[in-house]
């Protein structure tokens, strides 16, 4: 049980990220890679994700403005985006990526556009939630090792 109230709040926030399906086991994987040498590894990786994926999102947006749709290209972009999203454990974003790719494969332009809108929503929501989470994590400071009362 966390004694520090900020740590407790952080734990609750973390749990809700999982409970609400925003992140999956891959996120835990990243957390396990965090250590004293890399105390902000997860935040760094997530920052890298939002930086790199911004480019792909833009590419998809531009591709969706060109009619008729080049489904092969759209699918290729989304394959890359899905890969990155999987690496950070972005569960909802990943699910929406899969859906988008299915619409590409069946040549469903309407479906692609709908699913992309939803994807951008999830992507933005996750960014906000993780942003808040990391901010609190920095404030809460490093985890103190448990010490028994003497």
């Amino acid at each position, binding site marked *: 049980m966390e004694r520090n109230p900020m740590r407790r709040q952080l734990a609750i926030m973390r749990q809700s990220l999982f409970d609400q399906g925003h992140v999956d086991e891959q996120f835990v994987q990243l957390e396990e*890679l965090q250590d004293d040498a890399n105390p902000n590894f997860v935040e760094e990786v997530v920052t890298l994700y939002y930086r790199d994926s911004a480019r792909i999102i833009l590419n998809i947006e531009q591709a969706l403005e060109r009619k008729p749709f080049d489904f092969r290209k759209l699918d290729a972009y989304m394959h890359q985006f899905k*890969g990155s999203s999987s690496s950070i454990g972005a569960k909802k974003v990943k699910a929406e990526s899969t859906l988008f790719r299915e619409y590409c494969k069946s040549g469903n332009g309407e479906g692609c556009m709908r699913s992309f809108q939803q994807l951008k929503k999830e992507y933005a929501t996750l960014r906000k939630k993780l942003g808040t989470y990391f901010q609190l994590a920095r404030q809460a400071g490093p985890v103190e090792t448990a010490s028994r009362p003497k």
Partner: protein
Amino acid sequence: MHGNIWVVQNPQGSAQSMALVIRFQLRPSVSITINELGESSDQPCSNSLFKGLQVLLADDDDLNRAVTRKLLEKLGCSVSAVTSGFECLTSIGPASSPFQIVILELQMPELDGFEVAMRIRKFRSRNWPLIVAMTASADDDTWERCSQIGINGVIRKPVLLQGIAIELRKVLMQANKV
């Protein structure tokens, strides 16, 4: 093995001592600790197996490269990372390279992992360096194609610590049986 063997006889005519000379090519050693009791599923990271293992990681995606590198370092590997197939080939070189394992993303622009692996196998032996492919799409066709090229193992993306440890261990064990 280009060696020699001779026997020194004592005055009675029976062998007093024997000498055997065998020539071995010096290679960096890959130490293996074999657990006779079999593998325990909750201990995938036996550091003795991976400690100091020289790994070359090739992945054009910054994010994936950062995560995979960290996973490998966590296992104890010594990692060098490159961002393209061309860089990968340059790092290995035609003569001996320090790398024991090359971990290679299959879908890379310009020169993909399949092509890189084919070129490595063309100029080097079948098991040196060991090549492990990484891919998000690991279907039977992919595995078949990898096997034909001489790739020793395949890791499915997104990469998990356990997944990478198990596959690397399998590849190292197989190489040592040859």
